[in-house]
């Protein structure tokens, strides 16, 4: 998560309007779901990969790092899709049918491509920029504000948690399984109390700067470029064309 966030803040496309990136992703997702999976999903996947790695210059390792966990879930799900369990007749019968295999392949390819699109978005756009976009698209301000604060505080808590864990380790808190469980419990409890305390102080700090119920900040407003919007559409069209000309 920390690495993902760092790339989002430092990649080459960081200052490109999030709307342009979102349009590209929305187009790819629409193609991914509208066209036959086997034909379109690989094109969508590679389009997202190239945009991330070649376009925004995010290292490939970061891309695969984001993909790793969803890929594991997909792998775990494949048997359930491919195999069918038949309870009629002489007893439970587990069978592998060609239709089951095709279904499993289609579903996993489609999901993999969709996840790649989201990986592109999250690796090239900082979360607050995405939230600003969501607000402009009509998400309730209170919800956006909450997510904004949570995103900021997650990092504060994460820092505290890793410092506290190191302190516990230094006093051999993770020596055996038993002590690990105990230490982890203490860590969680401690973090909860500290977070409450921090919330109270954050409130004081905000009030000192005139907070009265609305977190307003002056965001950057990157230019929405017609040229880049057109390029995004063109890229999606190329993907669609590649999918359609395939036999």
């Amino acid at each position, binding site marked *: 998560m920390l690495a993902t966030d760092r790339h989002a803040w430092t990649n080459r496309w960081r200052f490109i309007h999030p709307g342009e990136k979102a349009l590209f992703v929305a187009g790819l997702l629409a193609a991914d779901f509208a066209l036959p999976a086997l034909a379109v999903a690989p094109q969508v996947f590679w389009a997202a990969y190239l945009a991330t790695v070649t376009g925004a210059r995010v290292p490939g390792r970061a891309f695969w790092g984001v993909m790793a966990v969803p890929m594991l879930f997909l792998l775990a799900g494949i048997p359930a899709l491919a195999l069918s369990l038949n309870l009629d007749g002489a007893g439970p019968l587990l069978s592998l049918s060609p239709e089951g295999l095709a279904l499993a392949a289609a579903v996993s390819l489609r999901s993999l491509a969709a996840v790649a699109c989201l990986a592109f978005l999250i690796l090239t756009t900082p979360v607050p920029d995405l939230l600003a976009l969501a607000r402009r698209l009509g998400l309730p301000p209170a919800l956006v504000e909450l997510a904004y604060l949570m995103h*900021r505080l997650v990092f*504060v808590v994460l820092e505290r948690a890793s410092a506290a864990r190191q302190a516990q380790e230094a006093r051999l808190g993770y020596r055996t399984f038993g002590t690990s469980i105990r230490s982890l419990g203490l860590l969680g409890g401690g973090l909860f109390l500290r977070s409450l305390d921090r919330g109270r102080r954050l409130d004081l700090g*905000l009030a*000192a*700067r005139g*907070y009265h119920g609305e977190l307003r900040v*002056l965001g950057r407003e990157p230019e929405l470029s017609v040229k880049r919007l057109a390029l995004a559409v063109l890229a999606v069209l190329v993907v669609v064309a590649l999918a359609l000309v395939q036999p």
Partner: protein
Amino acid sequence: MTGAILAVDGIEHTYAGEVLALDGLSLTVPRGCRLAVLGSNGCGKTTLFLHLNGSLRPGRGRIELGGEPVSYGRAALMGWRSRVGLVLQDPDDQLFAATVAEDVSFGPLNLGLSGPEVRRRVAEALAAVGIADLAERSTHMLSYGQKRRVTLAGVLAMRPEVILLDEPTAGLDARGAELLLAALERLNAGGTTLVFSTHDIDFAYGWADRVAVLAGGRCLREGAPATVLADAGLLAEAGLRRPLLLDIAEAAGVPPGGRDEILARLAERKTGS
């Protein structure tokens, strides 16, 4: 001295659980001064600061801002906080926004200023603390010293008359402290009143022009550093040690005084002998 910007008279504050934090504290803050509030842990420094910007309300006693008694209505508090800024000790308690520029824009926007004016103030505040180049950086990717300066910029952008700083130099390395103090000195030269708490008695002695010594929720004494910090009985009562320079002056047989006086006398002796 052109009168007091802030004055508290006999304020008391009790936290939940019957902990008496302030016990009849009285203190006057002259306009344009650099006032150091000294005292051991738990003497009531932070509680005092929270009273000075209206975050806490005293159980008893009076507070005056610019000669007028304060009130705690919504509009009055707004005005109060735009005149008296507070910089907390832990920058993570104050930075909430995603980027530096966004965080600094929070205060001016709350003052109801227009977009271009807010932008101007953000740029000015960042320049004042020497971090104009960090404007678009993410707040959680800054060093501790940078975060401290961003919180100061966030308060500066509201152009307050008084800035309250809770332990401004604690946890900073020499370079970080130097940069922060240089920014504060420029502000003070421009007429901003500075009130800061500190444990660093040598820093208070050398840098402040007034010091107030707190103990047990009261202000024992307030005045020029050279006289207040030379009072051995007072320092013992407050649990403070004597500034190192006064020890040196005594050992060298030089009469006590302010930092510059002692340094000048020591230099004189060196050239004389």
